[in-house]
């Protein structure tokens, strides 16, 4: 392998290959002194980025980096790690030396039971998460797409801004421990090599006097799902910008709302996070949540609302890793197959921590709730957005929410702001643009006050960090009653 290839990823790809990751472990372990085992966690990422504002591209970038974390005597519990982004021999040897030094001082005693052996090592199957189209979207192609998105906004006398990003990531965690195990036994410290891509494109179109703003965006592992939509994204943002100009102030209060899918997804973040956060088996979790009832001394676990109806029966929230649009990075400890969190309004599953997942082996790894709210599909209905509007006597149409913050974790009450388009509906028609509101509402409440549901669609839900995982979601538009808007926020 050439020096260039070894140092910069393969000749073809700007991220590390599986062979290169394995080799890093072997080389690191070769430098080890004093016995014991060695583990390395490797992340390798590449991003192609294009930022634009005021109708001009402001920056095009090509960036890449790696992160290699070395543990010596892994499984001893407690952090004692050294991370470096250089993998030449001298750097690796230094890192190994330093890791040994730190381990001597900071790690808790080696406890083999802390790293139990598990049967299967491979990651359960998932729909594809790697797209050649994403990594193949070169600079010139990105620039051309952005020019096409800017042009109609500029022609309309508006300002287009936005961000287009393609990313490739590879990760692996390997250890020299447990090599002599019986066939079929592996260490749960390890995670097999996996690589994925993420693409995102979002645009904000603003009126030059700052009096209107519209937004549209999409994300996916596969650029091909976005590329053909870029013109439509630009068009939607322009249309919303135009339609949001000269908004009027309305009285805060409770309104019937039609939430576009993006707004539903923005509101649902805290809901999805709560499913994992509130583990029945753990007294350590300091945050309470909506799903626990009381602690049962006999079972040493919380009694929860599992099996109870918690939201409207039209709502099912699930994840099928084989859904072509919902592929994610599946943990080796994950149980294969779909998981249903909410089924026809009934709470079916809560999250479990890694220890519980390892405990519940019963022939197959873990519980498929290590997935938490990483990705999900929410059921919908057949009512189109136009039909929802037509059947609304008085209500508000919301594009999305921004700056959402949790206020109360028992009720999942959150507050935040509407953004990039808010309209009043009167007697079945959009009549006015409305000034943005601060809202104070709970997704639990909203999901219990549903009037109509539309067709679920993929939403904009990328991860920001360069080595972030995939977090796709498919979400319907929802019309709900009595949504609480608490104060005026005359921002655009």
């Amino acid at each position, binding site marked *: 392998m050439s020096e*260039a290839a070894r*140092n910069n990823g393969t000749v073809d790809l700007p991220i590390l290959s599986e062979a290169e990751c394995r080799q890093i472990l072997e080389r690191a372990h070769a430098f080890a002194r004093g016995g014991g085992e060695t583990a390395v966690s490797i992340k390798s990422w590449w991003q192609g*980025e294009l930022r634009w*504002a*005021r109708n*001009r591209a*402001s*920056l*095009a*970038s*090509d*960036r890449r*980096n790696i992160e290699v974390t070395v543990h010596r005597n892994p499984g001893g519990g*407690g*952090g*004692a790690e*050294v*991370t*470096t*982004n*250089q993998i*030449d021999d*001298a*750097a690796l040897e*230094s890192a190994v*030396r*330093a890791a040994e*030094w*730190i381990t001597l*001082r*900071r790690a*808790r005693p080696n406890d083999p039971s802390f790293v139990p052996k598990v049967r299967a090592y491979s990651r359960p199957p998932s729909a594809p998460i790697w797209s050649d189209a994403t990594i193949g979207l070169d*600079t010139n192609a990105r*620039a051309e797409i952005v020019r096409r998105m800017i042009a109609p906004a500029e022609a309309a006398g508006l300002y287009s*801004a*936005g*961000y287009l*990003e393609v990313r490739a990531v590879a990760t692996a965690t390997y250890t020299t421990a447990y090599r002599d195990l019986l066939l079929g036994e592996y260490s749960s410290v390890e995670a097999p090599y996996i690589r994925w891509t993420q693409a995102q494109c979002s*645009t904000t179109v*603003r009126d030059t006097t700052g009096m209107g*703003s519209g937004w549209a965006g999409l994300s996916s592992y596969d650029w091909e799902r976005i590329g053909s939509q870029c013109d439509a994204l630009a068009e939607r943002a322009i249309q919303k910008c135009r339609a949001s100009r000269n908004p009027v102030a309305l009285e805060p*209060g*409770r309104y019937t709302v039609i939430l576009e899918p993006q707004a539903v997804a923005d509101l649902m973040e805290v809901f999805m996070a709560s499913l994992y956060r509130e583990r029945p088996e753990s007294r350590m979790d300091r945050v309470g949540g909506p799903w626990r009832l009381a602690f049962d001394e006999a079972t040493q676990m919380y009694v929860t609302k599992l099996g109870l109806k918690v939201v409207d029966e039209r709502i099912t929230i699930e994840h099928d890793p084989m859904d072509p649009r919902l592929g994610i990075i599946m943990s080796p400890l994950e149980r294969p197959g779909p998981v249903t969190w909410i089924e026809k309004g009934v709470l079916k599953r809560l999250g479990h921590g890694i220890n519980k997942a390892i405990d519940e082996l019963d022939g197959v790894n873990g519980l498929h709730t290590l997935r938490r709210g990483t990705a999900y599909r929410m059921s919908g209905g057949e009512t189109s957005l136009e039909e929802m509007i037509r059947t609304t006597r008085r209500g508000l149409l919301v594009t999305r929410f*921004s*700056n959402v913050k949790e*206020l*109360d974790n028992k009720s999942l*009450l959150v507050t935040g702001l509407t953004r990039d388009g808010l309209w009043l509906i009167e007697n079945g028609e959009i009549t006015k643009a409305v000034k*943005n509101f*601060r809202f*104070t*509402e709970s997704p639990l409440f909203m999901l219990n006050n549903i009037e109509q549901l539309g067709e679920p669609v993929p939403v904009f839900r990328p991860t*920001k*960090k*360069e080595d972030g995982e995939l977090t796709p979601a498919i979400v319907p538009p929802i019309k709900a009653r009595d949504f*609480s808007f*608490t*104060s005026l926020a005359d*921002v*655009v």
Partner: protein
Amino acid sequence: MSLSRRDLLKITIKAGAGAAVLSGIPGPLLAQLGAALPEPGQTIRDLAVKELALRAIEAARDAGANYVDVRLTHTRQRHVGTHDMRDVEELVVGVRSLVNGYWGFAASRLWTPDEMARLGRESVAQARALAIGPVREVDLAAAPAPVDEHWTMPVELDPLEDVSVDEVSDILDGIEYFVRVHPAFRLLPGSPSAHFVVQDKAFASSEGAYCTQRLYRTQGRVELELRTREASFARGLDTITPAGKGWEYFKRQPLREQIARLMEEMEAEAKLPVKPVEVGRYKVVCDARTIVNLAAPTLGVATQLDRALGYEANSGGTSYLNDPLNMLGSFEAGSSLLTLTANRSEPGGAATVQWDDEGVRPDDFTIVHEGVLQDFQTTRESAAWLADTYTKASRAVRSHGCAAAPTAVEVPITHTPNLRIAPGKEALDFDDLVAGLGEGLAVKDMKVDIDYQGLNGLGQGNVYEVKNGKRVARIMGAGFLFRAPQLWKGLVALGGEGSLRRFGVESSKGEPEQVTYHTVTAPPAVFEEFTVIDPKRKA
């Protein structure tokens, strides 16, 4: 040209012989250097680094760049908790090229001549892909180029070289034991902890600039929870927020005394009766931390010129200061008591540097003077946007030096520098202001949620009812609603010089996101009228 592996090991072991025992990590790791062995701690100043930087510039110029700059950063971080420790080391390089008014950027982790050339060419290729489009004008405000200069942030004790991990652990273990002895208190998970960053960076530009710097950042967390029969709440020590300091930040502070005082305050507070919030308008005394947290988004972020002109519209948002060119010198951002200055020079400031990430020597400048907006945070490109306004006011057209890239693998953009709110003339502190208040509310440690124009905010913190100039009860569930200009126009009293407090603030910005730190210094202050609501009450 490049060192053999054996030579490099010799450096690391040699550097490590003294340092390794202390720091646990051998000296700087470099992939390839010139033939001469550098002194430990001086590697960034080696000629070989400059040659690498110039190689990138040469390649970019050859490929047709009108302007190029390069950053190389070597960053070492150490995190120490009571049960864990993590050392991180990273070498990265980033090249930025300007071609016909369009910027291209390429970055990676290899400090080799070949990679420098590749990045130089790649950054130009990135810019060229954009330059096919419509014409774009970019003027870079003139800036004197530093030539072969070096600056080391003055610290007393290098946190990686001058203090052993054992000493750091001992201090943290001592804190843990000290708290454990008080049964009503416990430490929150992840605390106590200490975090150190040492960054060596080199900057070069096609205008002949070359400078190197060594920068430090130190911070820690000590968070306590008190459970008594009456109350349960948590507070953090606010004397170890991020700062441009070394180990002396911990060592020279009386941490145990500070923790003991914090515990006393918490116990005293726990005895206060608790009342639910009554919505209404109140006169409010805010402690220095609250003023810092109010100022950071409404006056710090809001005065980044790129943001105000729409360059963050697709991510964080814009600014309520939406007409910068016309607002300078006339917009009333606050009452005449409000004077806000900015700098990247204050000793111990988290944003303090000698040169910013465009090689500009930052100046101290005034953002708000006696309530009136005077200036924005700028880089070389954005300063030029204000050229007419500056010239008409007989001011220099220059960048204030706010360009920052946390590491070289990120592109430099405008980030908030250190800020300072001028104190009042009288020697008043928080308790004096409370005494002077008579009736109203007092709030400490308010955390603020702001909207995407830095305009409307909701603050929540530790709130007290004030009667007869004393804090008599804790108010639960209060939210402070405000609109930035109205808020600062309602500023009616300030603490004095002696009441000033400094805090390191973390902020994030950009797509992709970048995280930086800056210091904000402020006195406690009084607002004439604050709208208080119950934030959990629905409409």
